[in-house]
């Protein structure tokens, strides 16, 4: 077994080994230590829910303790009423807690993600949610059956962990409690890690890295963010249920700022984005404060924690596991070395034709793109001023015009990056004017923006796979499509290279490859040749001409030589309006076109 395989198995094997050790050593711990340590594991589970949202999802939520507290309260209410009937309390406490945490997170997440609030606003809103709950619960009094929620006085008589069924079942002793919590947390951890290793986790990673690109690949970003938030809320609620049974008592301080503050500290200490780091952080901080005396309830804990958080943020960015990971990286083979002997891309028409025919079999025939009276305004600037154009397959279309002519804006309005202020966009016969971006992409329109957009932390192959998976939603099929495109780009040997180390031109090709993985029926390229060598530009021209036989393709380019080699229809935009159309040969003899490019006055004013 190589070190590499071992390294990859760590996130499963090490926690499993720890759980086996805990089971083997069951009963040997000092009961008080076992009792206290149980809470550390629970906090670890809570912190893992934040790491899901923040480390993986890229959204800092300060509301995880809110879902934790709500899950705890709800689980407790159910358990107080039902546990006397069944004996076993865990079957009530945990599912009810997780369910309620997930529901609360879904509601909050829906408001945040479907309103598309910014990241900053999201953090503040989640923090406010916690503060509001803290305030409201102080005076919240409610009696549900045998359960009494007493505002400030809290809620007592919550049953402990009862495993047995029937009348005589008793609460677990501290050692057994520890074991129960370790096993449940380990199951939750392994389930979440396994889930996040799959396509869902990859999509969440892409959204964190580049939300816009993820949506340009046809993923409904809001939906995935909401599901991730919901999952994290469920984990937090599960932790809340465990906590309620552990403490036998809950009060509003579970929503307090002091409680909420601990969660990001655990995550930061352990290492953000690792999921297991949450537990490492919670155990470490719990352990240190336990052996230093005072426990988590010591006198000046708030002061120390506040300062700890400041120091962590400033000096320990990657956390303990992050630092260990850096160490391990040194012993792993360096895949990025292959980037150095990358050959220039050579477009093989047979390969491209095969890819395009396969795409056609899946996505249907080429579609036309039409804009009717399309309008986009930015304040007083009108980059797209009532433009009506129509593009079809068969010949490549070029969109040219001097800087500020509105070319890129036109493409962005077509794909939905900018909402239009008027007019219609038709893809084939379908009016896509009011569709969100990801649905336009799924309908068959794909765009490569001026700046290459690739996911830097992902490998070349993974980048292509993400695009292909968006269309097929089948891992094997996505693998086939992405391998074919990888081969077409001549990057077979570079499949494991991380996209971040590619040159600008190579990233352009990768981005073009990602667009092709989407099997689009209409392709929009914004300055694809930028950063490419002359040879590569020639190959690109060949590719565009080939593609135009199968799909509608529109290219924005400033490189007139490139436009000439395309030998297609050319549309000139000027000041947001259609200026003229024709072949490049005709336009080259058109004085007015030369005028707007060179800025000669006479004709410009007579527009």
């Amino acid at each position, binding site marked *: 077994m190589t070190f590499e395989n071992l390294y990859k198995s760590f996130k499963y094997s090490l926690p499993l080994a720890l759980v086996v050790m805990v089971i083997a050593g069951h009963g040997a711990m000092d009961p008080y230590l076992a009792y206290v340590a149980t809470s550390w594991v629970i906090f670890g589970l809570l912190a893992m829910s934040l790491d899901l949202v923040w480390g993986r999802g890229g959204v800092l939520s300060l509301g995880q303790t809110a879902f934790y507290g709500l899950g705890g309260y709800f689980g407790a209410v159910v358990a107080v009423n039902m546990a006397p009937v069944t004996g076993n309390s865990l079957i009530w406490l945990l599912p009810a807690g997780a369910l309620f945490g997930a529901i609360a997170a879904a509601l909050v997440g829906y408001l945040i993600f479907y309103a598309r*609030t910014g990241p*900053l*606003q999201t953090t503040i809103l989640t*923090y406010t949610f916690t503060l509001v709950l803290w*305030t409201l619960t102080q005076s919240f009094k409610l009696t549900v059956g045998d359960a009494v929620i007493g505002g400030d006085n809290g809620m007592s008589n919550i049953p402990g962990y009862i495993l047995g069924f029937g009348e005589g079942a008793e609460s677990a002793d501290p050692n057994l409690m520890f074991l129960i919590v370790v096993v449940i947390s380990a199951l939750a951890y392994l389930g979440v890690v396994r889930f996040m290793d799959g396509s869902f986790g990859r999509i969440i990673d892409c959204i964190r890295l580049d939300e816009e690109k993820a949506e340009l690949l046809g993923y409904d970003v809001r939906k995935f963010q909401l599901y991730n938030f919901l999952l994290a809320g469920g984990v937090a609620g599960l932790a809340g249920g465990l906590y309620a049974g552990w403490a036998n008592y809950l009060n509003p301080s579970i929503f307090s700022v002091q409680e909420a503050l601990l969660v*990001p500290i655990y995550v930061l200490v352990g290492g953000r984005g690792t999921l297991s780091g949450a537990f490492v952080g919670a155990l470490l901080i719990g352990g240190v404060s336990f052996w230093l005396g005072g426990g988590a309830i010591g006198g000046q804990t708030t*002061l120390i924690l506040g300062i700890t958080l400041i120091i962590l943020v400033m000096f320990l960015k990657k956390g303990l596991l992050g630092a260990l990971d850096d160490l391990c990286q040194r012993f792993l083979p360096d895949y990025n070395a292959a980037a150095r002997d990358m050959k220039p891309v050579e477009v093989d028409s047979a390969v491209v034709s095969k890819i395009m025919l396969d795409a056609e079999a899946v996505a249907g025939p080429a579609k036309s793109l039409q804009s009717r009276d399309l309008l986009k305004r930015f304040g007083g600037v009108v980059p797209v001023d009532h433009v009506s154009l129509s593009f079809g397959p068969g010949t490549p279309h070029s969109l040219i015009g001097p800087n500020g002519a509105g070319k890129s804006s036109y493409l962005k309005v077509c794909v939905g990056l900018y909402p239009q202020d008027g007019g219609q966009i038709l893809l084939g016969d379908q009016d896509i004017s009011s569709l969100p971006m990801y649905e336009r992409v799924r309908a068959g329109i794909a765009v490569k923006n001026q700046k290459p957009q690739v996911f830097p932390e992902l490998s070349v192959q993974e980048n292509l796979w993400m695009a292909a998976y968006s269309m097929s939603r089948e891992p094997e099929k996505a693998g086939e499509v992405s391998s074919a495109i990888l081969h077409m780009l001549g990057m077979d040997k570079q499949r494991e290279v991380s996209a971040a180390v590619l040159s600008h031109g190579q990233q352009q090709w990768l981005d073009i490859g990602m667009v092709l993985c989407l099997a689009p029926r209409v392709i929009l390229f914004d300055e694809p040749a930028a950063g490419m060598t002359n040879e590569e530009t020639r190959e690109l021209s060949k590719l565009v001409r080939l593609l135009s036989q199968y799909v509608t393709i529109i290219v924005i380019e400033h490189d007139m030589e490139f436009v000439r080699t395309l030998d297609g229809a050319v549309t000139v935009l000027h000041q947001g309006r259609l200026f003229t159309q024709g072949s490049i040969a005709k336009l080259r003899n058109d004085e007015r076109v030369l005028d707007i490019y060179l800025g000669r006055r006479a004709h410009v004013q007579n527009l």
Partner: protein
Amino acid sequence: MDYLFAVLLSSLSSASILLIATIGLAVVFGLMGVINLAHGEFIMFGAYAALTATQQGVPFILSIPIAVLLTMIFGALVEILIIRRLYGRMFDTMLATWGLSLALYQCAVIIFGTVSPGIGMPQMSIAIGEYSLAVYPLLMIVVAASMLIGVYYLLTKSVYGMKARAAIQVPHMARAIGINSSNTNTLTFAIGCGLAGFAGAVLLPIVPATPSMGFAFVIKSFLIVVVAGPVTLAGSALSAIGMGGGASVISSFMTSVAGDIFFFALTLLLLRFYPLGISSRWRFKL
């Protein structure tokens, strides 16, 4: 009729109090892109500074500038020691100021204890028909308006203000033409904190100083700034009057809980329609 007028006046005064507490936060957010989660604790800092000064025999009116100055110095220190090192790392800045918020809270508990004596409100009132309103809270309307005007003039007419706006809009260009943007940012943060200190001091007769007073204030202030959006100053003024005043009117006719519910519901509604704040499409930029 008199009743309605009295309610409107006192609601406007509540909205002004909210605005006074928010302006500092809005300035720092608008000019530095930094959300200072310790803003409430800077208000508390100002309140305790003014309280301590009056206990030493300084007249209340003079204790206000003392509080402002002390809070500004403290704010400048915080900027140099913490905020400056975290530029461009929005979430990290928030977490660090959050840690600071908790640390300051605990410091206040250690130094001043959990309860502290308030200072008496100037005993003056005016009569509107059969209703009598205390003058001091009404004075806050004037204070809030003058704060807004003062900050507006500071940012648009002073050299510092131009530098500050240049430094936030295009930081590298501002440096290239010789603006020391980190000094400007230190001053901006200090001014934001000074405004918080001013709020704590000037509101002292209405809101007594306690270690946890910051938490109570910031909830609504944060929401005001979030709802306000990119045009922080004018946006905050508008949302403070609309949301705070509205909530206050509701709570006069119903209960204070109803007022709070109105406030939060309105926040959610506004964010649903203006996810990046009500001012995200304004062309006016301050």
